[in-house]
């Protein structure tokens, strides 16, 4: 219930946060805190310094559509995504999925950048961002770089972010959405998804991403290829087998997850059609 002791500071600039993360051993960035604080309370992890990014919301919270790109600030909360008319109109998959995460209170603290940087295997937004061909803008001591979400995610709670790097923005290409679906399967409403499948159909084809079916969210490349080459949905859905490496946990066995993958991919394809 009570974390081990740590220091706390707020930062006013991204660079200040970056400097602290590099200089201070045991420094952790704190966004909404709904993954980090429970882990600290249960003493599953520890920190020597928490760097509160919340004051950066002035700079890093918000949704902007310009030149064919929708840019979302990393500290934009789930509830802001859910309610944003820009997101609702151009990224309906994201608006919908953001409204399914956790519960009402969690959605008022959790941020899209926090979710991507935390990279929990069962988290909704990494998968959704993958399906939307999202890329993250990352700033570090060496400057800024941009990388697609599939290059960000390396494993459960593992990313390609270096020490001292922070996600500042998430960018999505503006495309005409012809259909989308988010098939989220869990036990209780507030639970992490046991399995989720995101599908987004645009002028560039049908993108399908999978949540909690591998160490990190992945695109269902085999399914997408089958759809692109005209396979029927049931047939395309069967291909998902090649895209996943599910595991057993308290909520479901790998075998059941494998089964759900097929069912939910087919449903997602149908709904997005």
């Amino acid at each position, binding site marked *: *219930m*009570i974390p*081990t*002791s740590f220091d706390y500071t707020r930062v006013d600039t991204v660079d200040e946060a970056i400097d602290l993360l590099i200089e201070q051993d045991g420094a952790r960035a704190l966004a909404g805190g709904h993954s980090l604080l429970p882990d600290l309370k*249960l*003493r599953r992890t520890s920190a020597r310094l928490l760097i509160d990014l919340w004051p950066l919301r002035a700079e890093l919270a918000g949704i902007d559509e310009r030149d064919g790109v929708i840019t979302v600030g990393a500290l934009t909360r789930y509830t802001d995504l859910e309610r944003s008319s820009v997101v609702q109109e151009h990224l309906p998959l994201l608006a919908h999925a953001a409204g399914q995460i956790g*519960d009402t209170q969690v959605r008022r603290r959790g941020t899209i950048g926090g979710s991507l940087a935390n990279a929990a295997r069962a988290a909704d937004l990494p998968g959704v961002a993958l399906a939307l061909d999202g890329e993250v803008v990352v700033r570090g001591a060496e400057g800024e770089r941009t990388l697609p979400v599939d290059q960000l995610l390396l494993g459960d709670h593992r990313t390609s972010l270096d020490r001292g790097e922070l996600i500042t923005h998430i960018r999505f290409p503006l495309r005409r959405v012809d259909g989308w679906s988010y098939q989220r*399967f869990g*036990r*209780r*409403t*507030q*639970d992490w998804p046991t399995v989720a499948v995101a599908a987004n159909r645009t002028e560039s084809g049908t993108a399908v991403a999978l949540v909690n079916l591998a160490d990190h969210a992945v695109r269902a490349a085999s399914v997408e290829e089958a759809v692109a080459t005209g396979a029927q949905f049931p047939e395309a859905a069967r291909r998902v087998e090649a895209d996943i490496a599910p595991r057993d946990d*308290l909520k*479901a*066995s790998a075998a*059941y997850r494998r*089964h*759900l993958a097929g*069912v939910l991919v087919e449903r997602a394809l149908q709904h997005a059609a």
Partner: protein
Amino acid sequence: MSLVGARVVRKEDPALLTGKGRFTEDLAATGTAVMRYVLSPHAHARIVSFATDAAAAMPGVIAVHTAGDFGDYPDLPGPEPAARPVLARGRVRFHGEPVAVILARDAAAAADAVDAVEVTYEVLPAHVTIEQSLAEGAMPIHDALPANTLMDAPPADDIDEELATAPHRARLSLVNNRCSPAPIENMSVIADWTSDDLVVHASIQAPHHLRNYLTTWLGIPQTRCRIVAPDVGGGFGSKIQWYPELFIAPLLSRWHGVRVQSMLTRSEALALMAHGRAQHHDVEVGFEDDGNITALKLLVQQDLGGYADVTGAGLPVLTTWMAAGCYQIPHVATGFRHVLTNTSPVSSYRGAGRPEASYTIERVVDLVADRTGLDPAEVRLRNFIPTDAFPYQQNTNEAVIYDSGDFPKALRTLLKLMDYEKLRSEQQTRRDDPTAPLLGIGLSCWLEIAGFGPNGSLEAFGHIGSWESINLRVLPDGTAMIATGSSPHGQGHETVLSQIAADVLGIPYDNIIVRHGDTATVQQGTGTFGSRSISTAGVGVQSAATSMLARAKAIAGHLLEASPDDLEVVDGVFAVRGSPDTNISWAHVATASFQPLELPEGMTPGSLEEQVFQESPNFTYPSGAYSCVVEVDPQTGAVTVRDYFAVDDCGTVINPMIAEGQVQGGIAQGIAQALYEEVRYDEDGRLLTATLEDYLVPTAPDIPQLTTARVNTPTPNNSLGAKGIGESGAVGAPPAVVNAVIDALSHLGIEHVDMPLTPERIWSVMRKAEATG
């Protein structure tokens, strides 16, 4: 106008709605020291050594204690030789068992010090399941036992012949899943023994019961001990056990001269507060072509966990008593066995032994319907105890005499409420469409044993009596105070007891208050559990008020110079019937009751006080008929509860709003047991469901809207006619849900799936059925 039966809003609510409730943890004044346990990471191990010096030297730490420091004190009360020491003594028997305790100036220091205690263990093989504990050669968990069976009570009657000669027989093995009662307030204790008198505030259901045991254990006079249960944040049967902190906190306060607080975290509570259910049933039924059940044999294996709790040991007794449910079955045989395992101790959880019984008999009746091809409603109607047969001696045990009921009426009310015929035809249509979700309709005609008040009934569970005590007194201004030994935690005693008293006394409802939960201000008490409060405390209030009213009328008659028999009392005023102008207020009568010169001959001051230790001649048997309507996704196995209908019979209802709340809350817990909740361990006996992220207490969108109705067969066993309602929902709901799901799947040849009915379990049995079908 009668208040009994009226929908009266609660007296309890304004404080609780404005943040003025006072729960135990709210009473931890600044300067209260904090105790925290060091918990065993193993389910079964020998403790080789402790290294506590580093922890003891940390800032803010007052002391570190291990079992040796409590060597002068006996084990906690419990069935020998499987009773529990306050801290693990040389050996741990379940994951999370406390092995040491830290006392520190504040919670943060205590938490830090816990991490600094080093304990060396020699890990022993863990028996996580009943099967493992009973396996040939399994190491006894308690050395004084030759094996892991604490008590074996095989069936007294041999009905194998009756089963063998029945035209049909069927068997089922069922697991009643281990659940955590999980009140939202975790167990919380504050002990102050810094002066001569020990004062303990604790989140408990039975303060006097604790006083009786704690003082004996400490070897102090009861006059020197005050136990208070302030506002209590839910109990559901999990706050009447002898948790070590109730015993340790007082000693730490005494030893170190500080006020001591213990507040379990949720993870600790999920391991340390008693679990419930955890039974395995093997049941065999004999029946005829027409669905008549002729013989029933039930064998119960009760998982007790690592230590035996007295209530836990009693659970299978109640299960066997209630094994035959609402039915007239000529031959019934039951037996049970207590099995120790390396898991958290098991004790009462809402219904305590009766949900397990109703679950199995209602599954069995559905199995008979399935095998005979008869409608499940019809099979029930054919086997019900006839309405004219009450009182009915059930042939499970001579103590079981059903008081009243009308099972056919309850079922018919239900079938009409839900439009049963229409649902059945919808179900048929659905089955013809392979893409549609499967529709399942489940019935549960349940009854339970309640009103724990007959002599001897609670003594068996370690209480000193089975009565409930009431003190009723009228103060000089005509207001009334009721002190009850039944100690509520959400049931609305302040409201319903006031309703009962107001009706009898004619004192306005708002002028009555109810005190409870404090051994210093409440004469004696037993506690709130087992759906007993109305039939003991409620009846006690009625009885006390009736006696007192006669004396009040004598005083009023004397003052009015009228015959007491001619008086009536309405809205706080005594008046002569027919001449309302000849009247006198309750306040005037009450004042006079303390003034010798105003009293009639032979009456002494203070006569408007009445004390009752209310016993019950026998148990009560609330009953009902529930139905759950589910949809099963044939591809994923996900179950959605579409509708839930409930018809309850708890006899006389004192406050329909409160009764409804009890029913709904119980049903939600029953649905949760059936669909969501299960305590799980890994193969080494480590608790996997150690947070509310993993132990699946449902929230609002996970629980359906309920449609409820009521029938009323008052119990003849008490003057109110009330049977009790606290546990009904939890007793009746699980079989309704499971029967619905099995009904949805029965055309695939599926006869049973164990709770909780997770999507994966359903998918898995469907897949197996398709493979073999």
